[in-house]
């Protein structure tokens, strides 16, 4: 346990100059996407294997909890994609390593410029849908309503 705390504390402690925050963000966004992806893939396969169960999960994913998560996944995918391009380019272009810090900043700016309008769009869409549903928006769908 103490080694876990040490790992986390030392991972977060900024050592500077090498896009350390980019490295942390890349790992965390990757883990977040993977966690979502595994659920999403096995769930989507149910569309063929257990359509009723799939229909229930689609209803479940309209819950505010998942709507917020969806915006989070969008952020994670966009950051991971842009930072991934940076990593790949720098891997094949060692002569550009002197631009490490600048490239990390460019990725953060690019991410903000693209994610913020999309995030607002998704949030507005969700709040208007949820608002028109009223209290029903916060209710979890019952599995028994779908599987009979």
């Amino acid at each position, binding site marked *: 346990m103490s080694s876990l705390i040490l*790992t986390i504390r030392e991972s977060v402690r900024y050592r500077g100059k090498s896009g350390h925050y980019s490295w942390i963000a890349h*790992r965390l966004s*990757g*883990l977040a*996407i*993977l966690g979502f*992806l*595994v659920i999403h*893939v*096995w769930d*989507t*396969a*149910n*569309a*063929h*294997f257990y*359509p*009723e169960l*799939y*229909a229930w999960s*689609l*209803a479940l*994913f*309209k819950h505010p909890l*998942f*709507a917020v998560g*969806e915006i989070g*996944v*969008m952020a994670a*995918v*966009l950051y991971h*994609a842009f930072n*991934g*391009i940076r990593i*790949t380019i720098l*891997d*094949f272009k*060692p*002569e550009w390593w*002197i631009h490490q810090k600048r490239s990390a900043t460019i990725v953060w700016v690019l991410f903000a410029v693209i994610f913020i309008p*999309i995030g607002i*769009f*998704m949030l507005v*869409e*969700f709040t208007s*849908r949820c608002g028109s549903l009223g209290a029903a928006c916060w209710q979890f*769908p019952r599995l028994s*309503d*779908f599987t009979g």
Partner: protein
Amino acid sequence: MTSATPTITRRKVQIKFNFERYAYLFMRMSGLALLILAVGHMMIQHVLNSSGNLTLIFVAEQWNSWGWKAYDIFLLLFAIPHGVNGLRNILEDYIHNPGLMKTINIILAIFVVATVIWAAIGISLFDPEAARQAAQGLPS
């Protein structure tokens, strides 16, 4: 800044087959593919469409075409191995017991194969007509 610029040495040598080297290259290449496939998927399904009005009927319409089925199968083939290999890279940074790491690698490999096969079968065999039938009488 001093005027000294770093010099870069490139070596061309034959090296033996090395799994980690191909795993590394796979991360870059699949990453490039996912830049189009995964970001495209997010934009199409979560911005242009919305999970707010996603239903079994909508899925049946989309997976009526082999184009969409192929898109999703390619996404699956790149995304699952990319994600699990990324997890493996992270775990290897923190787990220093080679025996444990080997066991984890085997479990992760089985998981990747099982997930890809199961989901690819699900997408390929998905029958839009059967899905529409199943959607009859379900709450929307």
